[in-house]
């Protein structure tokens, strides 16, 4: 399985449930296309739920960074939810963990958007 993206709306927050592998190729480009489309439509508050992401490579990490930059430059906010241990470890060793606003609870993540 590559990656599966499901989008839902909670108030003015767009939640993207990501499942599968975010790796070079289909996985990375699907995430990139989906987020660009959301930003293009004017979505300003985006929550990426990575709870079902089984694997992410350096290309996938790069996509998360690009997504953060794209959303932030567009005047919006991007937050991460439910990191698996592997994704959390990767963000920590690459020093990116503190760049992202990471949450373990969807309720607290939604409330954190201003």
């Amino acid at each position: 399985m590559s990656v599966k993206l499901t989008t839902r709306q909670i108030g003015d927050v767009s939640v993207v449930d990501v499942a599968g592998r975010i790796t070079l190729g289909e996985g990375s480009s699907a995430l990139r296309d989906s987020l660009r489309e959301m930003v293009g439509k004017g979505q300003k508050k985006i929550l990426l739920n990575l709870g079902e992401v089984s694997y992410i490579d350096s290309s996938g990490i790069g996509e998360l960074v690009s997504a953060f930059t794209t959303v932030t430059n567009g005047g919006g906010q991007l937050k991460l939810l439910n990191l698996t241990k592997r994704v959390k470890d990767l963000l920590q060793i690459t020093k990116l963990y503190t760049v992202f606003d990471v949450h373990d609870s969807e309720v607290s993540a939604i409330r954190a958007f201003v």
Partner: protein
Amino acid sequence: MREDARQIPETVERFLDSTLESVDRAEELAMGVAQRAGFDEDDVMKIGMAVRESMVNAVAHGNRYNANKKVRFSVASGTERFTVRIADQGDGFDFSHLPDPRLQENLMRASGRGIFLIRSFMDEFQIRRLEPVGTEVTLVKYMASQ
């Protein structure tokens, strides 16, 4: 080392096409050998990821997906070392100046983390230029480190 570790030396070698399918194939092969060699789940995952990053470099950056160029992939488990070698037929790149992706000025770059991750996950990592063309990387994980 897992108690049921097989501890039988194993070697696998393949000549792979310059495709993303080959990246998946090499990752699977390396993880299979690592598992049979007795590495735990976490180390198997790290080896798989290091192989994936190295294969992406060979296929995408080295051979540039050229259908006429191959990637030589080998994995060998012994009593002391688990060794992976990946060689492409590309023009090579300047690997003497690889920026640290953790530095503030590089933190928000979308790329440049592959070799850093390989070095983080393996005990040894070497790159050498091949003559007349190509680059070979060698990844080593010590069996005793488990």
